[in-house]
């Protein structure tokens, strides 16, 4: 997503990353990933729950997830290890300027995420509709 920074600016989109990790872990993650986006900390996971994002061992550690990490290692990427609850699922949501959800994508399993192209398409549609 970092490579789409310029387009996100053109689309008038603000990216807010939400994590439940500690401040120290969040700072380290930001430094390692060079993420330019704002990271918010939901230590109690109240917002996670409010958005329907649950913790599930079965959904987090199925064969597809394990195979994903195997492919990462085989491709030479470094695993940073698990920080925090490894069973918490994530998700992606797009909120328009009226506060309405234009995309709601709670992950059904660990590797379940929308394509970046789909996220950008929704943002482009919103931009084209705005005055």
């Amino acid at each position, binding site marked *: 997503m*970092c490579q789409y920074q310029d387009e996100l600016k053109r689309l*008038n*989109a*603000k990216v*807010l*990353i*939400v*994590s*439940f*990790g500690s*401040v120290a872990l*969040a700072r*380290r993650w930001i430094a390692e*990933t060079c*993420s330019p*986006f*704002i*990271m*918010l*900390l*939901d230590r109690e996971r*109240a917002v*996670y729950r*409010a*958005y*329907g*994002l*649950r913790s599930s061992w079965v959904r*987090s550690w199925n064969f597809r997830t394990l195979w994903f990490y195997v492919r*990462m290692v085989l491709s030479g990427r470094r695993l940073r*290890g*698990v*920080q*925090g*609850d*490894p069973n918490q699922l*994530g998700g*992606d*949501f*797009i*909120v*328009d*300027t*009226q*506060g*309405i*959800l*234009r*995309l*709601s994508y709670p992950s*059904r399993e*660990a590797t379940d*995420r*929308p*394509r*970046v192209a*789909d*996220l950008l398409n929704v*943002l482009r549609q919103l*931009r084209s509709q705005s005055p």
Partner: protein
Amino acid sequence: MTSSLLTPIMVPAPPQRCWGHNLSRRRRLQQGGLRTGDRALDFMLPDVEGRQVSLGETYRSGQNVLLVFLRHLG
């Protein structure tokens, strides 16, 4: 955010039926899930510098917001 976490397929889950009941809607309500078209739940959370950031203030400032909830910081 790592793009490698994004899978190439986004297919909505088909509604599941069991004993004639629509489980998808009931499960969604039980899970407190929000759907496209619902009003987003407003919240205020601190960033890593301790500054409070409000979702409502962000979108009311005229920006569309992409919320990315991470799994864990691994």
